[in-house]
């Protein structure tokens, strides 16, 4: 428990929290407990009153109290809602801020969809923390206030009714343990079903083609059945709470009325007080019951908060370093090693990437080509060895300054939803004139189709750019890279996944972009390497050969196969 509380407080460190509001909510809670108890007392005296005659002043007081109770409830609803949402917002913003500044390597280890939930649903859970604390506090406070009143009503009866409290606690603990277990089973079963469906819904064509509909139906049936069973079982456990609370209700009656009727008979208390006692006692017991649910809730949230805490603990990307003083220089790799977790990805890379030249990297899938790009962009740091820019280690430069001199055009998901204009201007801080935009669009081969699209530059590209074809998306990405006007250009198989016609267009746009820049490209076909000044052959994380395309055609086996495969048509 203490460990959990520590985990909670850690994530709120450095967050601006609405303390005043929190204080206000607690005060309202306290007032509410008193009003509730008072209202019951008044009811008791009214009941006593009605046995003789109706007193209007007591009725008016009753109405007054009801009104006050109503107003307090409204105030509480509003204030606590506001508090909860403000805290949720603070957590969300904090996590999002952190996510923007985490090193990219973090994103490889965690599932992307899961990271999204950190900001959405998980942040809500963390915000609940204060809600739960307030609930626990209120439960305790209201319980105490209620019992104070009970003791003032009748000492022995109040003492007897204290015996009910351990029963309530016992039932709630039992219930909590049981639901935890059955709940876990139900969740696993649900997850299994969802996993199955998500996977098979995408493979419907294959299922039909193979005529295995019946088999898949049976498999799903089995999963549905299991899930259904777990759900039913889970709802059976809720009976323990339900039945238990009814038993507690019975006990309250027994204590109140068995003892009470004797007291009434002997004239020690009035009927009104007896009824008041009963009502109040039921309320106090109910309060204690919520205490236990809140503790359960607390531990349930602790796991989620732990996950948020983990993110917040990861150090940010460094922001210190010097500005870049020269526009371009040769990039030199000096004994660069890189391991991803335990797997070694790049081993002892030594080469130089000359400025204002085109360097092509070829190699098999998984040879480490994309990883090399990530090292150049400083998304990762080499495990061993250094990368030099001219004669300076690249880690000496300020990260933002370093990255500003790069632009990347990669093979998949190049666009973000928004308009074409927003995509082209992405990351550009200066003012851009319409003429410049049109010039860039023409250079990137997109001007014609943009003009033919309704809305032109303000047309929406759709999620992930899906309103446009692969080739068009790629050309917009090229326009974006041009707008950035970088000194270094990284092309990661920018033309794969395109059909021949689009590939030509993209290649034309690319050659405009490459003019006058240092270009490093990962090539998947031979034609892209022909014009390179230098080709690096990367195999299994090691540099196998470096040279001009002509040299390598003579000396390197892999490059020859690569050339043949890429131009098989042209024998």
């Amino acid at each position, binding site marked *: 428990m203490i460990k959990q509380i520590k985990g909670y407080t850690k994530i709120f460190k450095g967050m601006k929290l609405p303390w005043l509001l929190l204080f206000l909510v607690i005060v309202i809670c306290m007032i509410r407990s008193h009003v509730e108890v008072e209202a019951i007392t008044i009811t008791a005296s009214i009941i006593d009153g009605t046995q003789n005659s109706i007193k209007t002043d007591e009725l008016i007081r009753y109405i007054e109290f009801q009104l006050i109770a109503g107003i307090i409830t409204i105030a509480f609803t509003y204030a606590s809602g506001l508090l909860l949402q*403000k805290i949720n917002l603070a957590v969300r913003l904090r996590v999002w801020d952190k996510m923007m500044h985490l090193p990219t390597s973090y994103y490889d280890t965690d599932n992307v969809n899961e990271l999204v939930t950190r900001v959405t649903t998980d942040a809500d859970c963390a915000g609940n923390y204060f809600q739960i604390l307030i609930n626990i506090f209120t439960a305790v406070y209201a319980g105490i206030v209620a019992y104070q009143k009970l003791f003032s009503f009748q000492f022995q009866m109040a003492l007897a009714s204290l015996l009910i409290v351990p029963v309530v606690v016992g039932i709630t603990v039992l219930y909590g343990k049981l639901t935890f277990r059955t709940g876990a089973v139900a969740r696993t079963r649900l997850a299994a079903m969802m996993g199955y*469906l998500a996977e098979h819904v995408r*493979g419907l064509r294959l299922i039909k083609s193979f005529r295995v509909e019946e088999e898949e139906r049976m498999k799903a049936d089995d999963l549905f059945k299991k899930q259904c069973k777990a759900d*039913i079982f889970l709802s059976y456990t809720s009976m323990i709470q339900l039945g238990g609370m009814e038993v507690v209700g019975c006990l309250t009656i027994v204590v109140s009325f068995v003892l009470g009727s004797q007291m009434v008979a002997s004239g020690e208390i009035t009927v009104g007080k007896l009824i008041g006692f009963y009502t109040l006692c039921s309320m106090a017991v109910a309060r204690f019951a919520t205490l236990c649910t809140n503790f359960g809730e607390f531990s349930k949230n602790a796991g989620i908060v732990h996950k948020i805490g983990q993110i917040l603990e990861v150090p940010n990307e460094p922001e210190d370093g010097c500005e870049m003083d020269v526009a371009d220089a040769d990039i030199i790799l000096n004994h660069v090693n890189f391991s991803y977790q335990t797997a070694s990805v790049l081993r002892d890379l030594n080469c130089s990437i000359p400025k204002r030249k085109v360097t092509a990297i070829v190699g098999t899938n998984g040879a480490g080509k994309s990883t090399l790009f990530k090292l150049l962009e400083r998304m990762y740091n080499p495990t061993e060895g250094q990368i030099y820019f001219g004669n300076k280690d690249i880690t000496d430069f300020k990260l933002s300054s370093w990255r500003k001199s790069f632009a990347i055009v990669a093979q998949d998901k190049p666009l*973000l939803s928004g308009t074409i204009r927003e995509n082209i201007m992405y990351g550009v801080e200066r003012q851009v004139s319409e003429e410049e935009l049109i010039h860039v669009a023409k250079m990137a081969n997109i001007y014609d189709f943009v003009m033919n699209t309704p809305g032109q530059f303000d047309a929406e590209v759709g999620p992930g750019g899906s309103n446009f074809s692969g080739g068009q998306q790629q050309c917009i990405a090229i326009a*974006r890279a041009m707008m950035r006007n970088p000194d270094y250009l990284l092309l990661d198989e920018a033309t794969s996944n395109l059909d021949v*016609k689009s590939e030509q267009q993209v290649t034309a746009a690319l050659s405009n972009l490459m003019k006058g820049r240092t270009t490093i490209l990962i090539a998947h076909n*031979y034609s892209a390497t022909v014009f390179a000044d230098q080709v690096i052959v990367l195999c299994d994380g090691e540099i196998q050969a470096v040279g001009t395309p002509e040299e390598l055609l003579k000396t390197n086996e892999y490059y020859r196969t690569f050339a043949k495969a890429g131009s098989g048509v042209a024998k």
Partner: protein
Amino acid sequence: MSEKVKKAETGKGHWHSFWNLLKKIHLPWHWIIIAFLCNFCYNKVMLKLPTVSAGLMSGSTDSKVLWDAIMFYVLFTIVLCADVALRSPARHIAARNVRRVVWKKMLHIRMDYYDSNDPSDMMSVITNDATTATELLVEFLVGFLPTVYYAVTALKTISSYNVWLMLSVFILLPVKIIYTVFVGRWQYKTQFGVFSQIGNLTAYLAERVRSLSLIKTYTNEEKELKNGENAAYGLFDAYMQVNKLQCVVSALSTLIGMAQTMAVMVFGVILLKLGDITLQQWIAFFMFSSTLSTSFDNLINYWMNLKMIQGTLARTSHLLMAPEEEDTVKDTKKPEGTDIVFENVSFAYGDKKALKNISFQVPAGSSTAIIGLCGSGKTTSLSLLEHFYEPSEGKVTLGGVPVSEMTLDELRGYMGYVQQGADIFSGTAREALTYGLHREVSDDEIWKAAEKSGFAEILRKWESGLDTPVAPGGTSMSGGQRQKLVLTREFMRDTDILLLDEPTSALDAAASKLVQDTIFEMFPNRTKIMVTHDLSLIERVDQIIVLHNGVLAGCGNYSELYGNCEAFMDLIAACEAEKEAVQ
């Protein structure tokens, strides 16, 4: 149920279709009836509650009253638990049955349905919609009539005390109905606002998190931070709307509750003073009035839920109405040989023409490549051959028999299918390799096939061999390994025709070459039809079919087409540069 029938007869069309839908989803009627009876008992017991409590509250010190009360509470506990407990199987089994029916339907629906409805979106029909709808539905079926019974009997009891008392209960009913409808609408609106804001935020985050390296490369963190903050503030505002609504709701319900208490009290006190009722009757009436008001609330809610069920089930009902792939042919015709002929075939997705008057032949045992730009109708031709779609004109025949005159089992039994980014479901390697084989396969046979494709090498590297778990979509393997697995599977399936939809497009040059070789070496005698972007494949095939915007632009082998077909020349133009470079 009789309620439902009555409503269906009121003439509204959608009630009729709603009723039809209910028949289709196989509700567990026996469980519902049991739960219904339980709920009935519960309501019957509930009717006694005010009298018993009144006995207690009137301050009677008689031990019999007390004993009765305790007995009553024990009975009440049992009935309450039974009511809740027995409702749960009814609800969950109903949900399960809906899931079954929907999934079965989804498996058998015609492919063209999925062109306009993304199957991934349809998933929530099985998961969320089924749960929500059946919960509300069972609640309605089980609870509606007993609640009516309770309300009527309670009113009768009150009127037996005094007729005027009964009438006083109705005073606030119109206000309540207006309140529920008004608040319900408002609630729907604010809830909708929250859902769409959550949707916005999630969509925004999902996209940005996936493109994080882009954000970093373009050093645009600060701007994205601002955008994210705006989305978070949007959600905050939406939640605050809900909060405000809650305040209004609690204010209104406090007011209405108070007005009701006042009415009941004042009315009761007057009658009490006049001596028309006893104190015990007054207390009983007091308690009845609050439970009755809950009953009225419930009845109003039942009515509104009924609408909600219809709304929730709208997609389900749309799905269940979709046409299925039915075997209209009872006695399938056996094709003679496996020559494939497309005769003047046209096809359109809705208004969009995909294929226009296409004719070609694929002789048995030959290899054919279908090439063309994106959207030129290549994959559509394969789908027509597998009879996923019906051509709008012309016919597709296999061995002289139109594919529409064969049963789907017969027809698709001839076809093997390999896809871009191979389709592999999670499970063990053995399960993935034997998927769709419809027969027991010995490990020996699997190993033999795996040797042929080279997958055996990979299998041997894995410690658990055939029992190694395979991740969903086969993502635990490289693209080349996946294709090898799928080719092994096809080898064992031993079909006459192999359809390959861009088998090499996700692979690098070396892997692509390897997979090509495997295809030609493993399946020398099968008919191979491959859709491809990979031009290096086309010189190995016997026949090339060039599609351009749904029109057959050329058909022949490489040397026949070279120089004679403009679309073909366009497609290989990109390779010219390489040709020169190599020579």
